[in-house]
């Protein structure tokens, strides 16, 4: 059975994949169409309920909620991609270096990774915001920097397992350099683990960005943001309670989709489970 045949039979992967596809499609749609310009203020139509004209209603400034959710998907994906990209680029490099060199290099990298446990992403973002001011870039950097030790840890752990394999010992006996072994043998064999970790960290990045934007430290106006929409919705919860529900549902479905897809990929890419099928 091919990978895709197995994948289409895996419930978690299918449900997660559909939700993630919906998120990506929504973000792409935002570039070509939105029911109204996102962020366009229309005070006479403020706090309108759901209707044919405004499918999810309008907020306290008359902005169309559906349009803001659609465009907000774009920034959520951007945060996830860039933050995970930072984590993978630097974290995987450090983890591979630690596994290839061992000794004090490995110790240094791992102690550095453990040290960051004292600085969760949100706390780091708060510190950076205190220094550099709030914004999308600051929050992406903070979330991305926090991904580095996570990827370094998992890369090193997985790479150590590959370095102990007999074919790697044979490659070393043939005179191949650690660099060649890392690129030709280690990296391809740990790719599956990294892909799974990337989907999980993507989900965490969306949650972290939403929290920062809720607090006013992330995406700034006029860029729409699901987190900031929640903050604004909370202020209107007596007049229009649904304003605090829609952005939350968008976040939940996006994160749920990524987590389910990650769980599915973990099962599908694990060679031990693949042999049993």
């Amino acid at each position: 059975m091919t990978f895709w045949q197995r994948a289409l039979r895996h419930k978690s992967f299918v449900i997660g994949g559909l939700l993630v596809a919906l998120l990506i499609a929504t973000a792409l749609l935002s570039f070509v169409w939105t029911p109204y310009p996102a962020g366009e203020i229309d005070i006479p139509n403020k706090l309108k309920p759901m209707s044919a004209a405004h499918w999810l209603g309008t907020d306290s400034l008359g902005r169309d909620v559906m349009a803001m959710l659609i465009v907000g998907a774009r920034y959520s994906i951007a945060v996830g991609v860039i933050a995970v990209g930072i984590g993978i680029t630097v974290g995987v490099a450090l983890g591979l270096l630690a596994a290839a060199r061992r000794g004090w290099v490995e110790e240094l990298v791992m102690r550095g990774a453990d040290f960051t446990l004292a600085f969760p992403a949100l706390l780091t973002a708060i510190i950076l915001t205190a220094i550099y001011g709030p914004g999308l870039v600051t929050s992406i950097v903070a979330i991305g920097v926090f991904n580095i030790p996570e990827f370094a840890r998992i890369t090193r752990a997985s790479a150590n397992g590959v370095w102990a394999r007999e074919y790697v010992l044979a490659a070393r006996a043939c005179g191949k350099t650690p660099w060649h072994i890392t690129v030709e043998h280690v990296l391809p064999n740990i790719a599956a683990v990294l892909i799974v970790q990337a989907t999980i960290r993507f989900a965490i990045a969306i949650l972290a960005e939403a929290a920062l934007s809720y607090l006013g430290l992330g995406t700034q106006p006029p860029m729409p943001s699901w987190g900031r929409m929640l903050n604004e919705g909370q202020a209107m919860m007596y007049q229009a309670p649904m304003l605090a529900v829609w952005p939350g549902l968008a976040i939940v479905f996006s994160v749920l989709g990524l987590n389910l897809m990650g769980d599915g990929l973990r099962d599908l890419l694990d060679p031990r489970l693949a042999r049993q099928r």
Partner: protein
Amino acid sequence: MHEPGATPDRIISIFLFKRFATFVATLLAASVLIFAALGILPGNAAEVRLGESASPEAVKALSEKLGLDRPPAERYLHWVVGMLHGDLGLSVSYDTPAAELIVERLAVTVPLAVMAMTMTTVLALALGLYAASRHNKLGDVGVMAASQVGIAVPNFWFAILLILLFAVKLQWFSAGGFPGWDDEPWEAFKALILPAVSLAVVQAAILARITRSAVLDVLREDFVRTARAKGLSRDAVLWRHVLRNAMVPVLTVMGLQFANLVTGTIVVENVFALPGLGRLIFQAISNRDVLLVQGIVMLLAATVLVINFVVDVLYAVIDPRLKVHAA
């Protein structure tokens, strides 16, 4: 490699000493990083506080008041020594010692964190045990599906939903605020219930999965089969033997989760307008009170490190396999 003839207790003592040394080194490194990030890199804290349009004389006066005219190494040592004496410097926005402000706010944050962690533990252990005992049946599937959704829910959104239901609709609780422990202790406790629940449910979702996985691993052990063969009921085996052995990995994760709880508290306090550390750090940021931010961040980082150290110590003490392995 251990010395020949080393007793298990001695080996554990060496382990604890090394762990304590690592803890102290990490705490020092954290203090250096926080001081460098907030005390040096962004330029003069007085300039930050007063803004770009401030006169040089005003900046100089505030710099002297805050001790910013001294060399960074001296300021760092002064800060560390001050912390050891409970002095975190002066908050320029409140014109009050930072330590005094922080202690005042801890009266909200600590009870909130304790309540949240207690609820998390009870809920997660109950659900994790239940799911493991109904492995692959409807109960297990239900708990796992619920925990999957729980992990995806932002704690601050869940807090807003709780406010919508219990404060706006049912009016059982207030939508926010904190009356203070002195005047109305019961109302103060009530004011922390919804925030604690919003923190606990999301954390419990993660911990329940870990508990279920740990319990299932232990259920496969030979001693469990022996206990059942001796005639012990399934529940007796679960509570008397399995849970104790499954607690070791669960305890480790609980320690790691504490960092999430700390940051969750920051957000949730802002949702419910609770006058805790989370609100204080935000007020400090918006007031550009860099020294106050420095003190709070150091306290939060130190708390996470202390909790993780305590978990490591408990792990070494309660796991009898560590002593047997050492022997």
